[in-house]
């Protein structure tokens, strides 16, 4: 039995559910239909198969997630990954953080940004642009009832326009969603 992982990492991890994933062999037509629109042709992950217990929700969620993270224009892909990482860091979704830290590094070639977040946490001292994105992600995740003028002006100060701010809001919010599934319905393990 592999070891559960409880510390942040950029390593690729496995995810083991606490509830039963849908068995593709015995899946209903509705479940198969919802599973068809997963983002890649790779083997369907246990995470998606767990979500397929609720096919009506999964069918909307998959394209929503993809549009939020990959749509054209607006905030850069790397910028959206910082939003994802900030949310996952606050919510301690180790698996989500590992995936999106690795994606950020792949896109931006700046492992030092992730090192600083993992090392210093909420006190991370980042370059101005990344700092503003990270701080907004932390604030919106931890205190959605308390984002206002202060957060807004920090985002304007680094030059974000309205569409880029909207993209950042959605990237953080969709991880408020994803973290509450992935971190509560299973746990990360080291790959065997």
């Amino acid at each position: 039995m592999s070891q559960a992982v409880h510390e942040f990492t950029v390593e690729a991890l496995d995810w083991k559910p606490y509830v039963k994933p849908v068995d593709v062999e015995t899946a209903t037509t509705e479940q198969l239909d919802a599973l068809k629109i997963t983002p890649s042709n790779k083997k369907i992950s246990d995470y998606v198969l767990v979500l397929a217990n609720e096919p009506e929700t999964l069918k909307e969620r998959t394209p929503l997630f993809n549009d939020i993270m990959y749509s054209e224009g607006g905030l850069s892909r790397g910028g959206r990954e910082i939003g994802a990482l900030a949310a996952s860091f606050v919510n301690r979704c180790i698996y989500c953080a590992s995936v999106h830290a690795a994606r950020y590094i792949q896109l931006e070639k700046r492992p030092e940004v992730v090192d600083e977040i993992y090392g210093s946490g909420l006190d991370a001292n980042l370059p101005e642009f990344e700092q503003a994105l990270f701080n907004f992600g932390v604030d919106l995740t931890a205190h959605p009832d308390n984002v206002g003028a202060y957060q807004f002006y920090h985002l304007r100060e680094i030059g974000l326009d309205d569409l880029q701010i909207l993209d950042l809001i959605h990237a953080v919010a969709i991880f408020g969603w994803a973290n509450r599934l992935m971190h509560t319905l299973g746990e990360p393990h080291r790959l065997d």
Partner: protein
Amino acid sequence: MTSPSTTDVIDTVLGLDRFPDLQALREQRAKLKQLSQTSYQAALRPTDPRNFSYALRAALAARMAALWKSQELSAHFRALLEREDEGSALASIADPGNGAEDADPRLQAILAHVDLVTLSPKEATRTNIEKLAAAGLDDRDIVTLAGLIAFVNYQVLVTAGLKMLRDN
């Protein structure tokens, strides 16, 4: 009730008909706006509500919005609750101050999970899922509940972010 598919809940609760610039901004991301609304439908009013009645879903959503002090959304979900069958019987759940000590064990377990995963998701462990199973929830019920909690929290965050854009 009016068909939710033609109404955007977030636009409505934030009164964005009076803020055409912000409405136009949201239309630049029309696809995700539409999918956010269809996700609302899937979470709150799915075709087959199974073991989570529409009223229970609305009551739990109102509670989560209130936990985050999202007045716009908690008022919306309370109004939705009032329109659902048996909604008035579940009105007390919508108030986070109410732990429903006199509720049955299944509902008590659901409320405890909703409160924990809304405000402190990082604290959730395998034990919390085991408590739900012990209270009689099957695997699909657990995924249904997780999905409802996750969606409402997403909607709270999007609404909070858009409110920041609206007011600044």
